[in-house]
């Protein structure tokens, strides 16, 4: 996405100043190294931990723990330490023992006879579950006092359900194995971590009650938004008493709901879907030294888009909020785990089984190294009552950085409802009235009217240069505004904020008929059916129709996420998929259907467990056409061929 943005900015800039500049890329600053694993070993990474002897331990979805020595060389040495676990999705090493979370328990694993292989698998705490596949369990993460945190997914039955105790919760476990509920409202909390203050943040994935990816600061007793978990608030030890009946679709937004629902914790940072990933994963705090100018900030992985994003956080009136920025893309598989290696590089653990990722490998381990050069970036984006204070990593060029037209800011929000995801809602422009370069030389104060708590503010830079003539590597950030420093709510309000979606999408005429044309006389000459399958697949890879026939096509989506079905011209499915991705914020509301002559016919974006029949007249010209799901991240896998005979 931002590659495309960089190009357009470059274009804009060239028009302004006829100076040739060489655009830097992420790889000029942060380099990806791939760890080779011996053929045949299937390392679908569920957890990672570094050991006191600097070797790397990984837990895999096939239930093994491997110890990898010489991970920073061409020839890493792997040895299997443990096996037989039930899909462990976390790994910690604490006081001489491994701790992992299996589907049904937290397990302490030790090697009593020191032969390099585990011989004791101790159940720290175990819990009942219903055997729903979506009941994943993650962790543990250790707190400084030796207690552990884990998270438990809700089950999936066409919507998130919590049919076994504390599904959808974060749980606190003492070393003795006493488990108590800590926080509720989670849907798919695959990842959680700490910032440099030791505060807990968890990452959530778009789904029912979750408009988009996000990270949320979690304290004991918080409710993070998904109501299925509230089934258990009457259990002993529950730190909150909220009932699921108190949550409904009528609040509009989470921000509005939190005014009524006191325990509802609104997200610290939203990651707009398809732009800032599609499935946020591990959260890790950047060390002060050794990884560039972002010490103390967070990195957040994304499984579906195989990339890592950066988060600047600040605490305003006691509430965390901040901005996310692109950081590094191009990893080999779906990123689930991030861990700092002893040499200061970032170890990236990946698996994409069951969910496709931009990186086409089924699994893998890669390492991200800082090459020592400081990129020109927006290092911090701090909220002020009248705007934002941007701190750059390098001194700025006052002429370009002081020009208000080099900045644009729009704001939007997401809906809070049971429906899967949310369209970008209440999109409106903010006005940048001043851009003052401060005496420090690397800071710019933007004075803005239209800032609005409860909204995500998209900042785009076009033409801001560093003093040494570099462009901003990632001229895009999304600031989630929960609190203005002076408190309060309204300033120079320019747009309504009803929490309602933008108008219904307007599709191009004739491409999306959901009723049979009257001229067909009530009869289609050909009826087709196609449905989705888990793992980003259609159940068919080929459809055949007669040229010119009147086709009714029933598209069914039994999967646990949204999909669409778009028929394109031959060879155009990937272009159309890319165009859908480039729709950015507008994508969801337009059902990811780009306006393009390459798009012939299409369905709407279908909710899980729904279906739609569309009608179209097959092209008169026999030949090959394509069909594709244009939901971001799906197009490369979810496609097939339509043959017109």
């Amino acid at each position, binding site marked *: 996405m931002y590659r495309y943005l960089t190009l357009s900015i470059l274009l804009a800039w060239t028009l302004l100043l006829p100076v040739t500049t060489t655009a830097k890329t992420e790889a000029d600053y942060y380099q990806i190294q791939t760890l080779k694993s011996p053929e045949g070993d299937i390392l679908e990474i569920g957890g990672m931990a570094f050991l006191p002897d600097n070797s790397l331990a990984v837990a895999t*979805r*096939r*239930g093994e723990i491997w110890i990898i020595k010489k991970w920073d060389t061409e020839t890493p040495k792997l040895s299997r330490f443990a*096996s*037989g*676990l*039930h*899909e462990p999705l976390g790994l910690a090493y604490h006081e001489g023992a491994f701790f992992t979370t*299996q*589907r*049904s*328990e937290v*397990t*302490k694993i030790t090697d*009593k*006879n020191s032969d390099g292989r*585990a*011989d*004791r*698998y*101790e*159940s720290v705490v*175990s*819990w*009942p*579950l*219903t*055997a729903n*596949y979506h009941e994943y369990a993650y962790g543990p993460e250790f707190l400084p006092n030796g207690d552990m945190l884990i998270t438990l997914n809700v089950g999936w039955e066409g919507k998130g359900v919590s049919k076994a105790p504390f599904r959808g919760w974060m749980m606190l476990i003492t070393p003795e194995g006493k488990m108590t509920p800590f926080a509720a409202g989670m849907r798919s909390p695959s990842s959680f971590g700490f910032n440099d203050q030791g505060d807990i943040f968890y990452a959530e994935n778009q789904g029912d009650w979750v408009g988009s990816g996000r990270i949320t600061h979690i304290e004991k007793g918080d409710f993070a938004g998904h109501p299925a978990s509230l089934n258990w608030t009457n259990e002993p030890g529950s730190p909150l008493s909220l009932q699921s009946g108190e949550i409904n679709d009528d609040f509009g937004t989470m921000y509005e709901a939190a005014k009524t629902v006191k325990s509802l914790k609104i997200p610290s940072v939203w990651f707009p879907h398809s732009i800032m990933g599609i499935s946020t994963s591990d959260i890790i705090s950047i060390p002060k030294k050794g990884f560039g100018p972002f010490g103390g900030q967070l990195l957040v992985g994304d499984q579906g888009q195989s990339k890592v994003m950066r988060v600047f956080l600040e605490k305003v009136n006691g509430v965390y909020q901040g901005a996310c920025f692109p950081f590094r893309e191009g990893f080999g598989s779906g990123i689930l785990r991030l861990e700092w290696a002893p040499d200061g590089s970032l170890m990236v653990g990946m698996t994409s*089984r*069951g*969910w496709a990722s931009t990186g086409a490998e089924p699994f893998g381990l890669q390492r991200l190294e800082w090459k020592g050069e400081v990129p020109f970036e927006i290092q911090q984006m701090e909220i002020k009552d009248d705007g934002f204070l941007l701190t750059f990593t390098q001194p700025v060029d006052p002429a370009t950085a002081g020009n208000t037209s080099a900045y644009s800011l729009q704001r939007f929000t997401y809906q809070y409802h049971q429906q899967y995801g949310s369209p970008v809602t209440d999109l409106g422009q903010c006005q940048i009235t001043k851009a003052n370069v401060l005496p420090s030389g690397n800071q710019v104060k933007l004075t803005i009217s239209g800032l609005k708590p409860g909204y995500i503010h998209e900042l785009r830079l076009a033409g801001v240069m560093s003093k040494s003539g570099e462009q901003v590597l990632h001229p895009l950030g999304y600031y989630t505004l929960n609190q203005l420093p002076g408190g309060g709510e309204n300033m120079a309000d320019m747009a309504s904020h009803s929490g309602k979606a933008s108008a219904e999408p307007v599709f191009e005429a004739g491409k999306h008929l959901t009723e049979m044309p009257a001229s067909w006389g009530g009869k289609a000459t050909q*009826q*087709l*059916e*196609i*449905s989705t*399958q*888990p*793992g980003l697949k*259609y*159940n*068919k*890879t*080929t*459809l*055949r129709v007669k040229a010119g026939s009147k086709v009714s096509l029933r598209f*069914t989506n039994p999967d646990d996420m949204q999909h669409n079905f778009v028929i394109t011209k031959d060879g155009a499915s990937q272009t159309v998929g890319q165009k859908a991705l480039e729709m950015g914020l507008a994508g969801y509301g337009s059902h990811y259907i780009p306006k393009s002559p390459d798009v012939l016919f299409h369905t709407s974006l279908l909710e899980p467990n729904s279906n739609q029949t569309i009608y179209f007249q097959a092209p008169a010209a026999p030949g090959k056409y394509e069909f594709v799901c244009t939901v971001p991240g799906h197009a490369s896998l979810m496609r097939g061929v339509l043959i017109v005979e």
Partner: protein
Amino acid sequence: MKPYFRFSLLLAIVSFGCNSVPEPRLVQIADYFPETDTTIQTNLLPFSDTKAWKTTGWTEATGTSLPEWITENGTAATTFAQGNAHIHLEMKLEKGSTFTVLLQNAYPLVLHGDPTVEGQGSVAGIAASAKASLLPGLWQTLDIVFYAPGANVPARLFRATLNGVEIHSQVQLPAPEKSSDGFLVLTAEGKATVRNIALTPLDLETSVPALILGKTLRYEAYEKDGFQLLANFAASKKVNTGETAFMDIDANRPREINYGLKYFGTFTAPQTGEYKFLLTSDDGSRMYLDGKEIITNDGAHGDETRDATLTVEAGEHAFEVDYFQGEGGASLRMDYTGNGLPMLPFFSAGKTSVIQSKDAYNLVPEKEPIIQRSFLVFPPAQELASDEDPKRRTHGISVGDPSGNHFALDAGQGTLLMLWHGAFANAFNMWDGRGNWQNLVPMGQVISRNGQPDFAVLAEETANWPDSLAFNTVWKPKGYELNPAGWPVFDYELEGVAIKDQYQSTGDALVRTTTLTAKEQPVYFLIASGESVDPQGKGRYVVQGPGYFVQINTCKGAELLLRQTARGQELVAKIKPGKAEISTALTW
């Protein structure tokens, strides 16, 4: 709660000292009446009934709860022609003995006391389709549905089931070399014991299988890449049609993967009544009767059985069965019951299985045991309504033994669930895609125990055994430790009492050694339960229904009880306060 236990009556307890090799003191219980199997309509025993039997070399056993007859090299023949019949027979063989059921005194079905002998379960030289024999000394159950030859129809073994496993389905039997008197003849070479022999005549005019015999089905074969759902039939290509006697996917399929088959035929209900149809397939299938979809078993999955019970009017009804195979295992079979008949195959040629892409997910123990946690389908065979998921154990642990004594347990209840030999297990359902089922699938013929917890605190020794224990309050799984050979010692906690439960295969047997230190709580260990648990002397017990053997090697700090309940018998160790150690060897 299993309904059975609501009225379970503990009638008596047999107890005996429990030292290194205890000799059991057996006490006959005066008012103990075992439940009789009501499905057996006509018990043909005793052999002394000369109106029914002509026998040589059989004697009636004494001291058995059910009438049993013992022979060495004896023969028993009915005095009447057997005809079309459902034959039920229970027998116990010895190593080296051979037992032959001579259907119509012409078609031999042969069973050997040693399950490993070639030709086990063959009928008229036709090999059995599955291995289902139990070890010598265990009661085995044989059910046969046989149709006598007619004018233009050869004799057919409609179905034979050994120990609940189908070994023949709709086998056309070769004509005998000489004419036959039509009597049913049982012969033993070596020692054998029989009980519960029943013969239900099947009326050719009214019994449903008769109406199926000789009829054919029309089928259509389809191809479709990525065949994953019944809905894919719409876009599939019809490549072949034909006629077939059975729904035989191996014979009718157009290719090995990604195909669909539709079968069309007529079902004639001899009388109006309630019929139950069961459709089992891997992958998906559905059944229509009179144009109405009555069973839906959609999706790409392993063997799953869905059923429908409905009233069917007497007369002819058109039916259609659709089936598709994507990749991996493939099977289709259909059964029905009703009209007072035993469960019978419905135009089914028996199960076929093509394992291809799933092979890569086989777990193969080579040098040391494999221990793998997963969800487990339990009981292993379940009939499901269309919208029902199989019952599963979520804290399953399966252990594969290089020498073949595989087992699986539920750590969440401390229950040894299943025992099997042969190949160990397949992980396709948990390691492919998102692993939506998360099941590890045992690959051998499973001996399934009843699933009750193996340990419990009982208020008194006559208390009913619980069906489950409260998780984490009464019962806590605490993990396991591997011994130097890689065998697991499981740790549990039952109301604060630590239990260590070790399993290790010796090749010949699976040895289970349980140690615990009981305090004041009356802790009991259910070593084995079944329809019967019979002491054989020197600490050896034969467990019937399910069938396996238990050898008590060590029993320290505990007293052995043989509890007789309305369901059967339970071999229980009553743990005395202090340290106890019970070591048992299981064979099956």
